[in-house]
């Protein structure tokens, strides 16, 4: 299983495109008239890739992710997933992992994970088995009966990831999933996410503020500018996989991180 993802990362030239964004722009109505939020976004994410989007606050990263998830329509442009347009949420194609506190506090961990299957009226035994398997995948075997307030921040985000994967969508969107975690938990969760990714061979689009996190996780980092959000640069992260914590101390890691920071710092 593990080398599946590595292979797809290596041969991405031939791999099919999982997510395609064409000429996407977005303008929203603000207090003082129309505000351009995203401008002329072009994006191709090959299947199996781990793509990280970074950019300053208010660059429209979250808006872009909402549109990829079909939760908000763009003003213009198209989004294709698996070759078909995204116009409304389609959990069979796209799973979403949100920021902190997106779990339902009145449901247990396993009930939270099976929530998308409940909406689809999946048979009880089947959805429970599937949810338990996902909890096991994210390292929470035996925690199914806990309520969110009985779990740590990192464990809650593991549940969120399990929920995002429960319908086995080819694409997983992640909106700053580890932003609220402390530094150590964040590092551990990043590493865990890479393990889960290599076991499931998903296409991941991951949004973050953290440049270290971006370089550590990504096959490719997409740097966005401040409002209106445009793509400034795409940086291939050619660090070998599996990634290790030691790589963070290498020159290559530092140079990549520096290059991203330079782009963000000098963007108008």
């Amino acid at each position: 299983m593990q080398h599946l993802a590595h292979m797809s990362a290596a041969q991405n030239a031939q791999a099919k495109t999982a997510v395609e964004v064409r000429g996407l722009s977005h303008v929203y109505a603000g207090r003082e008239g129309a505000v351009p939020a995203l401008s002329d976004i072009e994006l191709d994410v090959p299947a199996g890739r781990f793509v990280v989007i970074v950019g300053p606050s208010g660059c429209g990263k979250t808006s872009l992710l909402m549109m990829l998830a079909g939760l908000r329509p763009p003003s213009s442009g198209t989004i294709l997933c698996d070759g078909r347009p995204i116009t409304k949420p389609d959990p069979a194609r796209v799973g979403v992992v949100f920021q902190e506190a997106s779990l339902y506090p009145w449901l247990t961990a396993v009930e939270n994970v099976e929530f998308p299957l409940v909406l689809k009226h999946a048979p009880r035994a089947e959805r429970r088995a599937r949810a338990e398997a996902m909890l096991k995948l994210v390292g929470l075997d035996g925690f199914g009966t806990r309520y969110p307030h009985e779990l740590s921040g990192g464990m809650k985000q593991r549940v969120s990831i399990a929920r995002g994967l429960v319908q086995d969508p080819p694409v997983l969107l992640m909106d700053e999933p580890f932003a609220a975690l402390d530094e150590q938990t964040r590092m551990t969760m990043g590493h865990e996410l890479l393990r889960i990714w290599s076991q499931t061979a998903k296409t991941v689009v991951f949004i973050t503020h953290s440049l270290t996190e971006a370089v550590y996780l990504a096959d490719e980092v997409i740097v966005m500018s401040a409002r209106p959000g445009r793509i400034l640069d795409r940086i291939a992260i050619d660090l070998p996989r599996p990634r290790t914590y030691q790589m963070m101390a290498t020159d290559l890691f530092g140079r990549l991180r520096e290059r991203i920071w330079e782009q963000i710092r000098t963007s108008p």
Partner: protein
Amino acid sequence: MRGSVIILVRIAILAALLAAWEVLPRLGLVNPMLLPPLSDVLGTLVAILGRADVHEALAVTGAEVVVAFIIAVPLGAALGVLAAENAYFGEIFRPMLFYVFSIPKSIFLPMFILTFGIGFPQKVAYATFSTVFIVIMSASAAVESVKAEHLLVAQSYGATPAQILRRVYLPSMLPILLEALRISMIFNFTGVMIAEMYAARTGIGHMIANWGENFQMPQLFAGVILLATAAMLFNELVRALETRCSTWRT
């Protein structure tokens, strides 16, 4: 250990109060005409519970309370949800509702008598009026307690509006709604009692007012015990439900 001590102290205080109620009038330390001994009051309670006119009065009061509750709660809940969900309606009516909420409702009682008379409809109308504002406020608060990210998650997994209502709105709002139900019953019961004591031909509130005016203290206290017990029972029942439905609230 601490918890059980607290419960013991509570029981001791209650027992001391009841004992004082029994002993002080009997020793003549308190005028037994004003405060009849507890045993006399309990004897009277048993006696009046066997009287046909008391049964009738209780039935009338019970019907007034139930009908007013059935009107005020859905009406208030609908208006409250509207005020929270519909920006236009909310902007216009929310300040007005807040102003009216602050007014003691009993000053409107004479108008209700002039409009509806002193029968069943007036009791129901006045109790509904006393209750509906607190229900509106609570329902608004309940809707606003629903978290935007919880709605977003459901939408991203393709939930239909009906599923969002049942699986997100309802469980989010349930603890606040149950609390609202409990508090609105207090307002509702109070409304019926005030209306009955002020002007009525029947009903247990009317009887209690009469017993007071005629200086029938054992009957008066028996009536008070009866109504206090009924109110506390309802309150505790809903509170038990509340606790069961809000274990997840931290």
